[in-house]
């Protein structure tokens, strides 16, 4: 008995149950006629392979299409998305994903194989080139590679670029400096590239402590990774000085693009002195988050580092035509090589291109203006203290004496997705909140009401929440203590 289905009870909750339907086991192989490996054994009957090359059997659910359609529709009904309601998950930029971008990505002419000849995929190369251009302009970067399939992959590619740059100069550097408030991926990406991580404490207003930075940099400094605005929404006002300190020490400045939605049209990483950055197109440029991915994390660099970018990139080429440019792939001279087997998450990149084209200069600038306005408006309506200001597109409220995770569970009962909780760690009981530009005032008022209702409730009410959701509070400890990661694990439990 394999297949779980869910049904709704009278109170709108659901009960999981095992389907009456047994899964089906099919025998595989058993092709006596072709034993010995006759190359042309394909006769349409029996297995085309000898037994010793095949598995014995395969056991999976065997469902009809209507049953499957109901199953997945039901599962979707037990899931919260941006279109279900507000999703103010801090540092995730949960924007509305415009429908037309999905249709644009579904163009059958865009469905090409990565090994096609360059001359036969000029349309694909043109869109890739266009997106490289757009991203370069938005970030103030001279050259962009679209290959990294996610933000963390962009970080890894960017740090490899920094490493290649230093190695080319015969400069052996071993450390990457990262503020303690940074996204966890920064630390992990730097470590994956083989660097020692030097953690930089924040000063009392949550920004980079210049004295600490001066003390941290040295001949060993390969790069400083920085998010700006930082992870509590504050702009690093000393960015020019920070860049000077790092550059004077011979290091490079890396920009984590997770918070770029705060700055569109108002400041560009390239103008602040950053040498390398990644873009989270699933955040800033509204491609769907898909329940965890796929995203895309293009990496941009200043001119001096362009020769190290991942391969291949796209460039314009000479053509016979006077009106139509041509495009070709090329390998940057000292390329770090590959961070994805092919060229990254192509379908996601199309959506990002379409979104940027839809908004243009004014729309992008307005997106940031409204994102920052929404965060500030929401911040002004909630009863929780926000220790760090002036913030931009997101703020870190503190739950004070309450447990932030419990507050979040209680907010579920009020029909909203809660903020990111207990992070960044230097804010006690943090609730990192990023409403994005897509919410109207009424929704922000609803969100504020959810915060404020939880703020006035006692610990027991919070600790026993949620009560109105698909599932009640889930036992995380039990899941980790006794990992059951597949149907098979449930079966062996005798279920």
């Amino acid at each position, binding site marked *: 008995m394999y297949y*779980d289905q869910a049904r709704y009870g009278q109170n709108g909750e659901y009960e999981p149950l095992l389907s009456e339907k047994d899964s*089906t086991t099919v025998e*595989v192989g058993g092709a006596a006629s072709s034993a010995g490996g006759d190359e042309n054994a*394909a006769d349409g009957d029996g297995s*085309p*392979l000898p037994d*010793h*090359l095949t*598995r014995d059997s395969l056991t999976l659910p*065997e469902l009809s299409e209507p049953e*499957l359609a109901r199953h997945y529709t039901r599962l979707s009904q*037990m*899931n919260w*998305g941006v279109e*279900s309601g507000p999703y103010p998950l801090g540092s995730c930029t949960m924007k*509305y994903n415009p429908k037309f971008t*999905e249709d644009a990505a579904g163009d059958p*002419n865009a469905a090409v*194989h*990565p090994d*096609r000849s360059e001359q036969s995929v*000029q*349309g694909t190369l*043109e869109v890739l080139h266009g997106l490289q251009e757009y991203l370069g302009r938005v970030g103030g970067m001279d050259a962009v590679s679209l290959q990294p*399939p996610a933000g*963390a992959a962009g970080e*890894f590619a960017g740090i490899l670029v920094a490493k290649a740059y230093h190695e080319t100069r015969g400069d052996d550097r071993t450390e990457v400096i990262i503020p303690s408030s940074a996204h966890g991926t920064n*630390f*992990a990406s730097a470590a994956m*590239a*083989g*660097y020692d991580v030097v953690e930089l404490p924040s000063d009392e207003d949550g920004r980079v402590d210049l004295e600490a930075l001066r003390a941290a940099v040295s001949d060993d400094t390969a790069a400083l990774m920085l998010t700006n605005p930082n992870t509590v929404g504050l702009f690093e006002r000393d960015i020019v000085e920070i860049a000077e300190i790092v550059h004077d020490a011979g290091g490079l400045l890396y920009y984590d693009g997770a918070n770029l939605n705060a700055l569109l*049209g108002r*400041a560009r990483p390239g103008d602040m002195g950053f040498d390398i950055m990644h873009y989270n197109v699933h955040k800033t440029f509204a491609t769907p*988050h898909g*329940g*965890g*991915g*796929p995203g895309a994390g293009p990496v941009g660099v200043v001119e001096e580092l362009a020769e190290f970018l991942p391969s291949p990139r796209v460039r314009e080429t000479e053509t016979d035509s006077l009106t139509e440019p041509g495009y070709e792939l090329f390998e940057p001279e000292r390329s*770090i*090589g590959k961070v*994805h*087997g*092919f060229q990254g998450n192509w*379908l996601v990149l199309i959506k990002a291109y379409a979104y940027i084209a839809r908004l*243009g*200069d004014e*729309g992008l600038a307005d997106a940031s203006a*409204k994102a920052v306005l929404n965060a500030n*408006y929401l911040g002004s309506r909630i009863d929780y203290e926000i220790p760090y200001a002036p913030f931009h597109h997101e703020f870190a409220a503190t739950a004070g004496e309450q447990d932030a995770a419990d507050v979040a*569970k209680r907010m579920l009962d009020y029909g909203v997705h*809660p903020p990111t909780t207990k992070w960044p760690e230097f804010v006690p009981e943090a609730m990192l909140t990023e409403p994005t*530009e897509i919410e109207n005032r009424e929704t922000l008022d609803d969100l504020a009401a959810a915060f404020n209702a939880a703020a006035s409730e006692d610990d*027991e009410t919070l600790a026993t929440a949620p009560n109105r*959701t698909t599932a*009640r*509070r*889930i036992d995380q400890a039990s899941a980790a203590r006794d990992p059951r990661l597949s149907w*098979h694990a*449930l079966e062996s439990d005798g279920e």
Partner: protein
Amino acid sequence: MTRERGRGSPFAPHTAAETAAMLDAVGVDDEEALFDIPDEVAFDGEFGIEPRGEAEIRAELARTFAKNDDLTEFLGRGHYAHYVPSLVDHLSLRSEFLTSYTQYQPEITQGFLQALFEYQSLLVELTGLPVANCSMYDAATALAEAARLAGRVRATTGARVLVPEPAFLRAGKRGVLDNYVDGTDLSVETYPMDDGNVDVEALSELVDDDAVMVYAENPTVRGTIEERIDEVAELAHEHDALFCLGSDVVALSLLREPASVGTDVVVGEAGVLGLPTSYGMGLGIFATREEFLRQVPGRLVGASEERVAPGAERNGDGSAAEASGRRVYTLTLQTREQHIRKERATSNICTNQAWVALRTAMHAMYLGPSGLVELAEDCVRRAADLAGRIDDIVGYQAPVHDRHHFREFAVRCDQPAAAIAEDLEGKGFAVHVVDEHLLQVCVTDANAAHADALVAAFEEVA
């Protein structure tokens, strides 16, 4: 009332009146006052990106994509096309799935969690290994993560990762592997192949106690089915190295179950189901043994129970907190991950390919066990059939390797391969050029209807 919006973002709903009221509530005159950006780094230039309407952009992109030549692709080598049933698009595009993110609040994301649990279960069934994560970016990054895992769990002091010679490992895959081990003490070395299979004798000379992992593919990138996979695994184990196998979810439905030959880690491509041809976008498989559970990269979904506390509505009798008995799902063992373990995490991966995993699971469930096996068997039959027909043409020899093949096979040609491929392209077909006199052809349900035309084209350009 007309919504007074200028040329701002069409996806920001604020009317002018609303904006004014909100600014008033915050206590500033305009949005610019909210930006705390020093003048010296403020940007007052333009991107020069003209905003366009939805219809205009779709027309523009349609025109641009139409510049891609309309070729019938007989291409594979790691990125494959199978017909994706309509159900997959219609259901995976439901916005509750598409517009959600990682399941940090499992109480309102049970649907996606269960779908990912089912995806993991599919991989457990296909590989025979008890632990499968819910996605890597693609086959290349999955292989690279496997090498790093092998480095972390190694039983020896060695540091060698053994992979097939360049002709049997895509350069892109090798490149990603090289980058992922660049920051470790691991080194990547190659072993030779013997007519499309691992040269077991040569490999046995190369595997020693310094090896931490041996990697082989089944089927190989040239489509050959590996016949001595168990001997390769045995060799690795004799020297306390891990055996890592690369495959894909269709091939796994038919070929020898990885666990049955002693595989330690299975990597490869799952996007062969659920994803259409998409310029190399993928979904990486990562499955392994129980003992490496806490070293696995990426997200894991596990079953758990609801915890119903005293005073809660469901058991209002005041009994102590207890499990309600209802099965629920949650992300688990997150202390392996970057957001908690930072530089000591098993990987830097955060955003993954979850939505593709959903689509893969949908496609696999749609096919069911018999449909999957049938699809896989057709991959063998069609390759054998088409290779035989091309072999019959003077000037070609196919398949080059004397093995069973899956989906694709190499073709030796008397004329230079590049010239033939160019001629074929002129006739509307795309095939791989893999060497001076070597082509590669991939045939699946997606292009089989054009096989006759391809054979005719081969005849004409011979």
